[in-house]
């Protein structure tokens, strides 16, 4: 009896490794650096969450479908610069809308290219989306001519962006509230709608899903479109926070997004995963960064940490059986 109890406790830890990691991290850092739990730092952490959760959320869908997407670097960069550029001609509402839709369109385009050439393995998908990313980035470069675009230079009002970027509702940043709403919606989308289910089934076994009558190609395009849409939102969140956009502002978001997804426990083999788990991954990675900051470690050590965590997470994921 005690043995089964022991086992179930062990099982709980195994299932919620990330959650445990977060708790341990908070306790250890709080002891080492009491300022960690101060209101100022907490607000800082919440703000640091910023664009990454959006990107990781989108990436979760692509990874659950059994693929990968490196093009979000290009999408985030291109959407950012185009949005800033459109504030004057279209007004801020129009620019925002076009920006987000552009993200979705670019994601759909990825899906279209991939399904047209029949890319099915992770290797094929990886390199083609990398190529797409270069294309988007180049378009952003051509558009900006390497200039930094500033919100402050717009002639029209850009209050939506400043609200998103710096206003709080209570102690919670507006952008975080927006994110939580979207997170809940996307969670329901993945779990409750037939399209979300199709994405999971596709990642579980493409052949079986096909023989049961799911349209593999359109499901694949859907996953990429969602990722594009979320990247568009990430781009808007980033733009709001830093108030500038450059043709390279999306750099490193792809690896960080993949990192959060994998750390959260969504397997790279596809099929299994959850957007909520990804959020745990985001929180863990952001907290870890914050802790390292508080403890006075350089930002470079954070890159080392992220790389190590990514490698170890993939390794452990691979060792897990089904």
């Amino acid at each position: 009896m005690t043995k089964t109890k022991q086992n179930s406790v062990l099982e709980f830890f195994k299932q919620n490794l990330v959650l445990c990691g977060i708790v341990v991290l908070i306790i250890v850092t709080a002891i080492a650096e009491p300022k960690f739990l101060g209101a100022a730092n907490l607000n800082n952490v919440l703000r640091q969450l910023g664009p990454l959760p959006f990107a990781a959320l989108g990436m979760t869908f692509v990874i659950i479908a059994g693929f990968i997407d490196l093009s979000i670097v290009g999408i985030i960069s291109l959407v950012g610069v185009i949005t800033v550029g459109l504030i004057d001609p279209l007004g801020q509402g129009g620019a925002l809308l076009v920006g987000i839709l552009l993200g979705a369109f670019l994601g759909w385009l990825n899906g279209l290219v991939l399904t047209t050439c029949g890319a099915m393995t992770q290797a094929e998908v990886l390199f083609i989306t990398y190529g797409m990313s270069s294309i988007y980035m180049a378009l952003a470069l051509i558009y900006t001519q390497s200039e930094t675009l500033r919100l402050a230079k717009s002639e029209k009002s850009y209050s939506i962006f400043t609200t998103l970027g710096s206003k709080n509702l209570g102690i919670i940043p507006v952008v975080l509230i927006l994110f939580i709403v979207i997170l809940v919606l996307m969670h329901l989308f993945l779990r409750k709608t037939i399209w979300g289910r199709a994405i999971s089934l596709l990642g579980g076994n493409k052949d079986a899903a096909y023989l049961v009558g799911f349209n593999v190609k359109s499901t694949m395009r859907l996953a990429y479109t969602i990722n594009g849409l979320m990247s568009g939102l990430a781009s808007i969140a980033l733009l709001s926070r830093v108030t500038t956009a450059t043709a390279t502002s999306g750099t490193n978001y792809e690896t960080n997004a993949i990192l959060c997804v994998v750390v959260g426990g969504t397997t790279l083999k596809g099929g299994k995963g959850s957007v909520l788990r990804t959020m745990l991954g985001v929180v863990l990675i952001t907290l870890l960064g914050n802790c390292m900051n508080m403890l006075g470690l350089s930002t470079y050590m954070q890159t080392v940490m992220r790389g190590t965590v990514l490698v170890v997470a993939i390794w452990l994921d691979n060792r897990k059986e089904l």
Partner: protein
Amino acid sequence: MEKTTDYILEVKDICKYFPGVKALDHVSLSIPFGVVYGIVGENGAGKSTLMKILSGVYEKDEGTVIFNGETIEHTTPIQALRRGLSIIYQEFNLVNTMTVGENIFLGRFWENKGMRGTHKKARELLDSIGSTISTYSLVGDLSASEMQMVEIAKALSFDSKLIIMDEPSSSLTSEELKKLGIIINQLRDRGVSVIYISHKLDEIFEYCNIVTIMRDGCVIDTKPVEELTRSDMIAKMVGRTIENEYPPRAHFVGEPLLEVRNLNTHKLHDINFTLHKGEILGLVGLVGAGRTEIIRALYGADKVKGHEVILEGKPVKIPTPKQAKQAGMALVPEDRKREGLILPFSVESNITMASLEDLTHMGIVDSSKEADIGKRQIEALAIKTPTPETKVVTLSGGNQQKCIVGRWMERNPKILILDEPTRGIDVGAKFEIYVLMNKIVEAGGAIIMISSELPEVLNMSNRVLVICDGRITGEFNPEEASATDIMDKAIG
């Protein structure tokens, strides 16, 4: 070396168990030097298992193997090769991206002092069996018969004393087959023994000296080929006692339901057949004859050159499985794990995945109805699972298969296609699946069943179509036809 024995290979009382199955049951063979030794048997008679044990891919559970006077306990494929026992499989063991010469000396590049020596030695070997293939051509560009030559040359490069050929003729044209015959004779004259495994009895009579007939993992008979007739042999291959392992045959055949005309693909030629309401139609043929291809093409899973499908009097187009499903078809595929199940998913989601669309309102899946379906099918089919949330990968083969059947039962399909529905399933679960099939036809559905187990087809179906080399070569009433007749057509 002095010969201590007359036999190159002696196998005594070999047994091999797989979970739930006895694949080999006290098999004994003695193969003299310099003979061509035929082994015949139906699909699943245990021939391939025996060969895999000899070559070291599987471990034997009981028995002894004596090769060239040496008792062999454990062996690995490479050790077997170095001792002088080569196997040429149906799927060739060649690296398609490398040249012929290098494939012959794979992993032994410097034994011949580099590339030039390798090709020179390979040339000599190929010349010795009268083959003119360039040693510099890529194996991937060769025809099946040329690949076989390469495999034979590779076997000879190890100075093999025994070469096992597993279904060597399955991908050869008649011209190529003649060549193979000449080479086999050459090998015998050199003192090399050949084990020749084939379904095709003509070849056995033409090439072999001694024949062993296997069935259900047992050796049924071993005789010099002169003492056997074709009909003897077929009788011994199929003649098993039919036990009471099948439910009584269903008789619900009604009017025509589905008509397929001029189905052609690169492997199928002019397939025409009709399926009736309430009918169980058996498709029989050897592995690779095109049975699975027919149903995949019909189901829209493979592309076709052209065909007409008439369902309930109306022509329908089925370009993808989606349309097939909408037209009321359902497919239980051959490879359960690769094409049927989503292994890391729960029993429930594996069952409901085909019905999700029906449970969806405005895109939202009704999860309470989903749970109902899961429970209902688990109950209806008596699927043994702890909970509906249990991962399907943990279930036994029979219960996994029932999950796939249950997935389609929920939709009351008009046409249920079963590809090897009882493969790897224990006897009890088999019976349950047979009963289920009868229930489906009783309710007015029709079933197309592919099976390699002849007795199963003979006992379950209302009509049998025999497929050979992508063509329908015979149609039988299983109540009148004998297994021998059917086998005769399937062998072609």
